């Protein structure tokens, strides 16, 4: 796979690619409830399935970058996807698209309402009683699709199962996601050295 060829292949052919990217992420930002992870299934559908701007496997690599750096996960994901599709302009459009809906909504709340009125609004809280369990389902779905695109089989399934179990047990240091990112990177590097040595022999 040639890297330059690969990049031009994923560029959107539309007339205003950055505008399309911005609008896509505006949609994503407006419907992301419950943080960056809930975004994944919407991004997958918009960017991978609908517009075919990136491959599913590349998306997984971008998620790895976004998760291993500090900052707001949703913005990191948008930045890395935007950069992959359209370079600097792309990541500015994607990041702005993600930020603007929540910025505007919170600003309106701050100007016209108090947090208390929202918190005790019966209609809004009942709507969110329904949305919250659905958001969990929206995070379970990409677990399966990404496990497929990462080609996880019986030999490798202990890695995600182990990582998920240890993190969700909340064991302090052992449950820090950054630890597993580092371990995964080191493990991948060692595996690369090992397979190269075997190849040389």
């Amino acid at each position, binding site marked *: 796979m040639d890297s330059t060829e690969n990049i031009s292949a994923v560029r959107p052919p539309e007339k205003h690619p950055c505008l399309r990217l911005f609008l896509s992420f505006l949609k994503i930002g407006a419907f992301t409830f419950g943080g*960056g992870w809930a975004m994944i299934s919407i991004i997958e559908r918009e960017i991978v399935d609908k517009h075919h701007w990136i491959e599913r496997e590349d998306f997984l690599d971008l998620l790895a*970058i976004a998760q291993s750096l500090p900052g707001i996960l949703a913005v990191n994901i948008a930045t890395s996807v935007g950069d992959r599709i359209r370079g600097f302009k792309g990541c500015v459009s994607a990041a702005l698209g993600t930020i603007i809906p*929540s910025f505007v909504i919170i600003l309106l709340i701050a100007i016209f309402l108090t947090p208390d009125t929202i*918190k005790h609004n019966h209609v809004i809280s009942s*709507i969110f009683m329904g949305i919250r369990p659905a958001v969990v389902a*929206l995070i379970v779905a990409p677990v399966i699709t990404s496990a497929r695109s*990462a080609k996880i089989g019986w030999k490798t399934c202990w890695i995600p199962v182990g990582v998920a179990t240890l993190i969700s047990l909340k064991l302090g240091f052992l449950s820090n996601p950054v630890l597993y990112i580092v371990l*995964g990177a*080191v493990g991948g590097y060692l*595996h690369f050295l090992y397979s190269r040595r075997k190849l040389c022999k």
Partner: protein
Amino acid sequence: MNIFWQLIRAYIKIGLFGFGGGYAMLSLVENEVVGPGWISEQMFTDIVAVSQMTPGPIGINSATYIGFVAPGSVDPAYATIWWGLLGSCLATLAVVLPSFFLVLYSSHFIRRHHESGVIKGIFSGLRPVVVGLIASAAILLMNAPNFNPNGITWQLVTNIIICVAAFCLVYFPMPWNHKKLHPIIVIVIAGLAGYLIYGL
């Protein structure tokens, strides 16, 4: 030091040292904004609650809100919409920009060395870990506040049904057009269901 500089400094710090996104960052945010007395503890809890009830990343929500409120609460002279607007723009930019440039730089670096076996090897090791991270996010959200906030059994059962139904809608192709439903449509349906079940 001017309150606006303090806001920028606090949110750059949050953007640079907040790993793990969302709720993992909350204690850091709390330290930075409740500590200097910009907002009260109670107000902070309210902002977190509102962030859960509005779309968008919780980090952005809190930066926008606190940036708006903090200048006025520190100095009454700043208690106007325009100073608040300035504060929320500055705080939001400050929390986003550090990681924006970090992501930009590292994805350029990785793209430049895309061909190298080392980078390929590293990513082949990272992919299964990322699958595990997504799974852990899902498991961590399967908690009482999301499924059973009031401790009532029929609500727990209803919420589990909503979750399973949402999964089926988003994962399996629909029988009439053999396409999966868009996740946004699933969120809208779930919100409607929530209103019909709990709101009426």
